[in-house]
């Protein structure tokens, strides 16, 4: 293991990031509305139709499963020297962006994303590059990434 680390020091993973669950808030709100409505029906002395109950239950299960599966479709790894973007479920497309190649970054947030403080972080190699989508606190992450990049670049200069 030590040998491996010496051979590939840039493979040491500092952080693993997936889509923020805040992305699915509208869906979670739908589930809560349906559950709340059924509780209201129950406590107002009315019966819940068996078929309607099954439909709601199926909807909730499908939403929870679909959101969790969707999250697994894209994973971002932050190493000491690069950002790795893995996408796919069975066949994986792995894009590697070395810190040296990153010229610039931009944070994209819609109004909804600003309210809940999540969004996209797009990297540039003098032209638009890969995007880390729907990550939590993108501005804080961009700052953290800049610091790591600065440290990595400083380390390289020291070695020279």
């Amino acid at each position, binding site marked *: 293991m030590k040998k491996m680390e010496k051979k590939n020091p840039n493979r040491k993973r500092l952080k693993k990031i997936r889509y923020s669950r805040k992305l699915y808030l*509208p*869906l979670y709100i*739908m589930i809560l*509305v*349906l559950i709340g*409505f*059924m509780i209201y*029906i*129950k406590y107002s*002395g*009315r*019966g*819940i*139709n*068996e*078929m*309607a109950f099954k*439909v*709601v239950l199926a*909807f909730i299960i499908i939403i929870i499963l679909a959101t969790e599966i969707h999250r697994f479709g894209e994973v971002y790894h932050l190493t000491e020297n690069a950002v790795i973007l893995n996408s796919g479920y069975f066949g994986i497309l792995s894009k590697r962006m070395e810190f040296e190649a990153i010229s610039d970054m*931009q944070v*994209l947030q819609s109004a909804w994303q600003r309210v809940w403080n999540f969004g*996209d972080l797009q990297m*540039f190699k*003098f*032209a*638009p590059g890969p*995007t880390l989508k729907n990550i939590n606190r993108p501005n804080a992450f961009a700052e953290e990434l800049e610091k790591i990049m600065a440290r990595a670049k400083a380390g390289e200069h020291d070695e020279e």
Partner: protein
Amino acid sequence: MVEEGVEAVLTHPKKSRKWMLMLIGVFLFIFIFVFYTSFINPDFGKITGNVISQPGVLNGISVQVNLDSPENFKVDTRMDKVDMKVKGSFEVDDKRYELETASIVMDNFNGEVSFDDDNLVVEGKVTKIFIEGIPITGKIKVKFDNEYSYLKLGNFYTSSFSYDASGIVRLDDEKVVVNLDDELFKVKKFTGDLEKRGKSFRLTGIAEEAQAGLITVKASDRDTE
């Protein structure tokens, strides 16, 4: 010579709203469906008709009796409908209702019903109850111990019931008609309706065996003929 320039156009990536619109559509459909089945048409999707889940008699003899009332009667079973008129207070889902008189109809009752000339005791669970025409649905516990003027049990089962009765007994599609005068009336494995109004006591249904006085009619005898 023309200088080549690089133009970087930063645009927001277009996000597909198609999935979200579809999900909102599905959500609205489910919400409206739940509303419809709870507030407008609670019977939606239910199979109509009666499912016989008790050991009823499929090929029994028909029984129609109009007799004087037994001193007491007790049955503990599931029945499709209970219709009654009671006096005084009663409990529905642990809530006490104080009414002078009330007309009660219950669907899918499962529990115990017993009565004598004056008093009626009903204890069990129902899926729907109408109190003076106002419906309450759900799994509802009911408890009555009241004076009553009318009782009808719809599609119930009793393994055996007998008493000394006076009145008319019609058996096997009126092939046998017996006028009882304080003589034994007996049914075995009876499925059907019971109606009691004042001193009048009616049974309509089918039984495996029925006895009126000295005459006994059995479904098994008829099958062998």
